[in-house]
């Protein structure tokens, strides 16, 4: 079955002429047709685009001239990434009919590498959420248990990767939105360093935190995708000009002598005992491979979440000011003057969670509260960042749970604050701008995936991926497939 193959295996078949990109695209489209009615990972399936791109890739392989390791590989992207001529909704009614006139840089780079675009994936509206239940259109289901959430906000991207509905996908991570759904869906999800990947064409949520990254069936595949999308971009001044290594080549070498820190504060009260046991077992695996593990302290961990819920909403309230019913998107009828039109359009176009965060952010930035809230949060951010800096003087990577628990049931978390607490172990990494990956690290008795989070120094994705790859090779969790046909 072509849809089960990793990018590396698929590419090898293409090169040997044992399969064509058109056959792979057709296999994925057929699987999407058969299964996505249940998983609901896709908001838009771009069948014609995919078949057209695949035919072009066929010709390149026939001529013996593939463009890259991703040539002919069927991928899909979170619907927060602009795609020229293809509807980009951000999971929101306010952009339900928006068709971007340009490609996000990461989309352009995937195209230039020959990847085949299967479609656009579901998400919490404007990436605000941890369950994909805040999509304005429908919730995505967890492939391991269709009554449970896939996590979020990149829930469609995680579910599609886990259910073999794409060979790899892209998501974005502002407070855990790649790593948390990767953990919930039992797939690999990588958040690169802030500044590693261009965000041109990523619809902005919280600009000092947002970062794009891949979901894949294996760590090696994630490394291949990162290699294609990483690097400076004249269209994004925050995408820094730091050399992009050959991530695939950097995977070899193992973890002998690697110093792995175990942050005490990530083993919090309320951590699911099955998650804790799996992560401790994963640490033992790394030790068995020759890594030197030691306890470290990140004392400001618990202040990360409250600081984040000032910084991210403040930036969101500013970024989302552009949705005003004038240049694009929804306009609500009946506004007698401009300001009334704005208010009605935004009331009709945004969902409850987005409104909550806009309100929270506007409040935190408003006169008289700025210093007490936003200013305070930025100082706390410095303390969180210093914790990591000090830990990385002693160790090379950190190993911790990705999430405090496993996938919960749809509709289970109705209180906003309870939902926010899901990201308590992923948010500090965003505040500090570090690279982090979640890899499959076991299953609960009930059969739900557990994620191991590995965190590294700024721009040191190579070491994070090397440790993750070594762990993956020593375990079989990534080989298990969800109970789908």
């Amino acid at each position: 079955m072509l849809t089960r193959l990793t990018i590396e295996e698929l590419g090898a078949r293409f090169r040997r002429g044992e399969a064509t990109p058109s056959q792979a695209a057709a296999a994925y489209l057929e699987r999407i047709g058969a299964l996505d009615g249940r998983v609901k990972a896709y908001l838009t399936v771009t069948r014609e685009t995919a078949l057209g791109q695949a035919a072009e890739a066929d010709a390149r392989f026939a001529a013996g001239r593939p463009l890259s390791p991703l040539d002919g590989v069927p991928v899909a992207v979170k619907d927060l990434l602009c795609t020229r001529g293809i509807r980009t909704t951000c999971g929101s009614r306010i952009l339900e009919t928006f068709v971007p006139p340009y490609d996000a840089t990461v989309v352009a780079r995937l195209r230039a590498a020959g990847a085949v675009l299967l479609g656009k994936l579901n998400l919490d509206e404007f990436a605000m959420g941890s369950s994909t239940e805040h999509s304005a259109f429908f919730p995505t289901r967890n492939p391991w248990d269709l009554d449970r959430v896939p996590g979020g906000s990149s829930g469609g991207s995680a579910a599609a990767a886990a259910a073999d509905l794409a060979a790899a996908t892209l998501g974005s991570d502002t407070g855990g939105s790649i790593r948390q759904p990767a953990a919930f869906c039992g797939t690999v999800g990588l958040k690169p360093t802030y500044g590693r990947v261009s965000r041109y064409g990523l619809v902005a949520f919280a600009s000092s935190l947002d970062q794009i990254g891949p979901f894949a069936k294996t760590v090696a595949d994630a490394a291949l995708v990162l290699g294609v999308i990483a690097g400076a971009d004249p269209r994004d001044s925050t995408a820094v000009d730091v050399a992009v290594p050959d991530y695939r080549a950097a995977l070899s070498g193992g973890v002998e002598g690697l110093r792995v820190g175990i942050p005490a504060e990530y083993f919090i009260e309320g951590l699911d005992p099955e998650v804790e046991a799996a992560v401790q077992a994963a640490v033992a695996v790394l030790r068995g491979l020759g890594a030197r593990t030691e306890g470290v302290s990140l004392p400001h961990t618990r202040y990360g979440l409250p600081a984040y819920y000032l910084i991210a909403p403040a930036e969101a309230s500013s970024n989302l000011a552009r949705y005003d019913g004038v240049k694009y998107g929804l306009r609500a009828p009946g506004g007698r003057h401009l300001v009334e039109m704005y208010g009605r359009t935004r009331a009709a176009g945004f969902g409850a969670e987005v409104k909550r965060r806009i309100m929270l952010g506007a409040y935190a930035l408003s006169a008289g509260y700025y210093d007490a809230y936003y200013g305070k949060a930025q100082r706390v951010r410095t303390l969180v960042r210093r914790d990591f800096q000090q830990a990385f003087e002693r160790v090379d990577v950190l190993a911790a749970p990705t999430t405090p628990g496993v996938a919960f049931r749809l509709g289970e978390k109705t209180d906003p604050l309870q939902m926010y607490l899901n990201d308590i172990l992923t948010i500090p990494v965003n505040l500090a701008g570090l690279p982090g990956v979640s890899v499959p690290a076991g299953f609960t008795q009930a059969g739900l995936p557990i994620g191991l989070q590995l965190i590294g120094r700024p721009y040191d994705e190579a070491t994070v991926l090397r440790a993750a790859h070594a762990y993956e090779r020593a375990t079989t969790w990534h080989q298990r497939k969800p109970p789908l046909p």
Partner: protein
Amino acid sequence: MSEAKISIEQVEHVARLARLELSAADKERMRRELDAILSYIDTLQALPTEGVEPTSHAVPLTSVMREDEPEPSFPQADMLANAPDPSGESFRVPRIIEE
């Protein structure tokens, strides 16, 4: 029962700033939810931060300069294609002055 963090009047004020029309029921629910979130956020107040520099971006950013070379803009028709109410070469809006 601790004092409310945010009043209905403040919710109305912030909603005006954010250009968000809220119904009466929305306002009360919003007040309750923001109150709970702000109470949680107040755990930050226990942490002393005097003398700590604020972080605006995790990665130090320097101004990135490039040559100022003119490039073609997007075609006007493309830019108007998504507009809810285009008019010729313009975006049409309701009148700006309240009566």
